[in-house]
């Protein structure tokens, strides 16, 4: 039988779905590596339930001959490893979806779900290769076979991955993979979807996910102090730094709670460290008082806020963009801060550095907003496109008459730290005088508040402009921020509508001055956001007066897919209303 695989499209999307604990992560990593080593591009994204074993999670792998960096609904291949495939996956099964599964596990549950079912005795093949636990490698082999990728490299990969374990672990995985590969090859009748000619040697070889991109950017910026309390989906940065603490010379500590994490960060910043804390909305909510402390003591503190759906515990392993206003307004009193929301791996690396640069220069908090979708997605990038910005400049020694809060037209006092120079360095959470001592004086209060708020001018003048994609002479504008950017960019290029452009914000506060004019040029503005109220649109209106005429909101816990974005935009722009999903 010939299966309806996509051929000559230069792209294929494979979804692997299965219970937690089956080693899908290994499949994902191995496939990604081999795909990229074959000169193809890859994008991967995971969605998972809040449990350690069981349930049903999935990973999407988009393999392409050109750059891919956005989630799609398209599902050419579904490898269903466990029964009880969840609705969000079932719904994506189309007539041409080839479903690979083991009927012994799945029974008849996918009968009638559409697509073309291929029954493969995964467990049996795995058992023959050394044990049922190698089912994941059988599955990986099948995908390799379908894609047309040489399974020989898999053996290398497993040897490297399991170098700490007994050699037979790698060997059995390889055997399982080979067994799977044979099956895969048979499914495509020996003619894999990609051939070696599809590959290009110019393909970016680094495979980096959003979390690591933020971590690497922070490291590049000289981050050397990491405190955090574990919280999905933000823990990755903590683990990454913990693993490399010795190598990069960073203090890394898991704290008793988020209050300790942020207050350690502020203390460390006072002492001249370059700290980051990583958390999600609930943890950030607990840090609000500490953020305000950073504001008044003028401490350069960077926060990685990786969003998930709220309120409260919400959906612990899902995605949303609903903490923008929290990030912008939390903390009592008024003080400047900067907010970044990267949309790609390259910009995550860059913006993490920018966040440190701005935090250090303006001695105030900077926040990097990501979300579960973003931190758990990866794509291949060229190492050369990961731009290393200028590192932090060494701190000056303080003179004997040093005053920490010396007034300055920029609002930024010379930054001194204890233990470096002859001056006394004070920091105070009260309103204070130039030396940092508490002093109740109404004029001093105004002077100090003005000094701090003045920084916002400099920060605004250095703000990164939004990126415009599409025609310069647009009359309709789609506005989005952060992780939705590549998705809406691809959706728009699919739709190829005249007069429609995308305005994409990766710095969401302070706003670049061009925003107002760019918005005003549009007759219609679609706010596309991963929340239920249009937080960024509200922010834009508050500061530019321009109202979004249409809304496309998603808050189901999953990120928009390209198709969904396209369909939504089509609806909205044709006047059939957008609304929320």
């Amino acid at each position: 039988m010939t299966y309806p695989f996509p051929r000559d499209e230069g792209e294929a999307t494979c979804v692997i779905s299965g219970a937690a604990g089956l080693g899908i992560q290994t499949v994902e990593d191995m496939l990604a590596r081999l795909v990229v080593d074959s000169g193809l591009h890859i994008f991967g994204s995971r969605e998972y339930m809040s449990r350690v074993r069981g349930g049903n999670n999935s990973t999407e792998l988009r393999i392409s001959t050109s750059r891919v960096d956005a989630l799609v609904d398209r599902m050419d291949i579904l490898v269903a490893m466990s029964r009880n495939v969840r609705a969000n996956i079932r719904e994506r099964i189309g007539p041409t979806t080839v479903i690979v599964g083991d009927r012994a596990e799945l029974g008849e549950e996918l009968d009638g779900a559409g697509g073309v079912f291929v029954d493969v005795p995964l467990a049996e093949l795995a058992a023959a290769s050394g044990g049922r636990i190698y089912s994941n490698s059988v599955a990986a082999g099948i995908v390799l076979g379908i894609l047309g990728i040489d399974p020989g490299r898999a053996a290398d990969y497993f040897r490297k991955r399991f170098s700490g374990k007994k050699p037979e672990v790698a060997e059995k995985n390889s055997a399982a993979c080979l067994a799977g590969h044979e099956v895969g090859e048979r499914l495509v009748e020996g003619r894999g979807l990609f051939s070696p000619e599809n590959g290009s040697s110019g393909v970016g070889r680094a495979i980096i996910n959003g979390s690591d991109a933020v971590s690497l950017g922070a490291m590049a910026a000289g981050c050397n102090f990491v405190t955090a309390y574990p919280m999905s989906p933000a823990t990755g940065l903590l683990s990454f730094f913990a693993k490399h603490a010795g190598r990069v010379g960073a203090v890394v500590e898991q704290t008793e709670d988020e209050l300790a994490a942020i207050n350690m960060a502020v203390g460390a910043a006072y002492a001249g460290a370059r700290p980051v804390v990583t958390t999600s909305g609930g943890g950030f909510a607990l840090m609000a008082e500490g953020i305000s402390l950073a504001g008044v003591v003028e401490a350069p503190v960077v926060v990685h806020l990786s969003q998930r759906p709220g309120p409260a515990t919400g959906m612990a392993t899902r995605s949303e963009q609903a903490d923008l206003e929290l990030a912008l307004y939390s903390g009592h009193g008024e003080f400047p801060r900067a907010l970044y929301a990267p949309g790609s791996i390259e910009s995550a690396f860059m913006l993490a550095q920018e966040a440190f640069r701005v935090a250090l220069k303006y001695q105030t908090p900077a926040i990097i907003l990501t979300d579960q979708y973003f931190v758990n997605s990866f794509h291949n990038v060229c190492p050369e496109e990961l731009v290393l910005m200028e590192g932090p400049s060494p701190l000056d020694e303080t003179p004997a008459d040093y005053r920490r809060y010396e007034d300055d037209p920029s609002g930024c006092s010379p930054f001194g730290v204890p233990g470096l120079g002859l001056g006394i360095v004070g920091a105070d959470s009260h309103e204070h005088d130039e030396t940092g001592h508490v002093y109740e004086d109404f004029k001093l209060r105004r002077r100090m508040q003005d000094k701090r708020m003045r920084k916002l001018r400099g920060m605004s003048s250095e703000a990164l402009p939004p990126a415009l994609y599409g025609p310069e002479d647009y009359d309709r504008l789609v506005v989005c921020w952060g992780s939705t950017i590549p998705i809406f960019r691809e959706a728009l290029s699919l739709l190829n509508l005249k007069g429609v452009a995308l305005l994409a914000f990766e710095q969401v506060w302070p706003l670049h001055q061009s925003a107002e004019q760019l918005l005003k040029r549009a007759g219609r503005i679609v706010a596309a956001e991963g929340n239920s109220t249009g937080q960024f649109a509200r922010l834009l209106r508050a500061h530019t007066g321009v109202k979004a005429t249409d809304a496309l909101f998603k808050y189901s816990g999953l990120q928009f897919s390209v198709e969904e974005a396209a369909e939504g935009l089509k609806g909205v722009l044709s006047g059939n209303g957008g609304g929320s999903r």
Partner: protein
Amino acid sequence: MTSNIFDLPGIEISWCPGCGDFKILDSIKQALVELGLTPLDVVVVSGIGQAAKTPHYMRSHFFNGLHGRALSNATAIKAANPGLEVIAVGGDGDMYGEGGNHFIHTIRRNPGITNLVFNNMVYGLTKGQASPTSQRGFRTPVQVEGVRAHPFNPVATALVQGAGFVARANAGDVEATKDVIKEAIKYKGYALVDIFQPCVSFNPVNTYSWFKENTYWLDDHDASDFNGAMALALSGAPFPLGVIYRGEEGPTFEESLAAYRSDSTPLCRRGAARDAVRELIDGMCS
């Protein structure tokens, strides 16, 4: 007290006349001088409360942060620059109430900081509500029928968390308190001194004379004996004063950090680990 290099000239101290905090301030400054420290060696870290105003009344580096969070700030300052002598001061509400979680977990972590708690058994700055150490029956505008919760025992709680140095002092005894503070600062790891402190405005019960009558200085107590220390810690009034426990000096938090394994440079003098970043990215290419 005679003048010393930790005096901050020309300031107005906002404590009430007669407050025990004045005496503790004297003890601290004198202890620092006697240890040969200078204002540039020391960072006094505090939260919010009357006790927590201390860093504004002496000359040294200082970080006056939020109510309850001084131990987190102090741990981080020490970790960022282990060469600094870090002293975290605050009141009983600050350290044991709002900051109770940090109290417990900071001790478990064992940073090389000194923790001085001015224990007046009341919230002074906010005008007289009960604190965790308020004694049963203590009446206030909020505890109108008197406190009924079990009083917090900082000494025993610290011992249970593995504190290596636990002491108690009495603000009224400036000289003896100074000596205990010196010992605490000299101790390598985390050191707690809970200092009884009369609040003349809001605690009419636990006064100078009450503390005099309800305490005694330990004489020949073997501070290295944990069980003996625990027994003392759990004893009610009269409360023992002096070094109650002094364990072995194990590794401190900052000593065990990977960041200092091969490089003792404080963080403020370090650049970015750009080579490591390049290597890590390279590692992601294969």
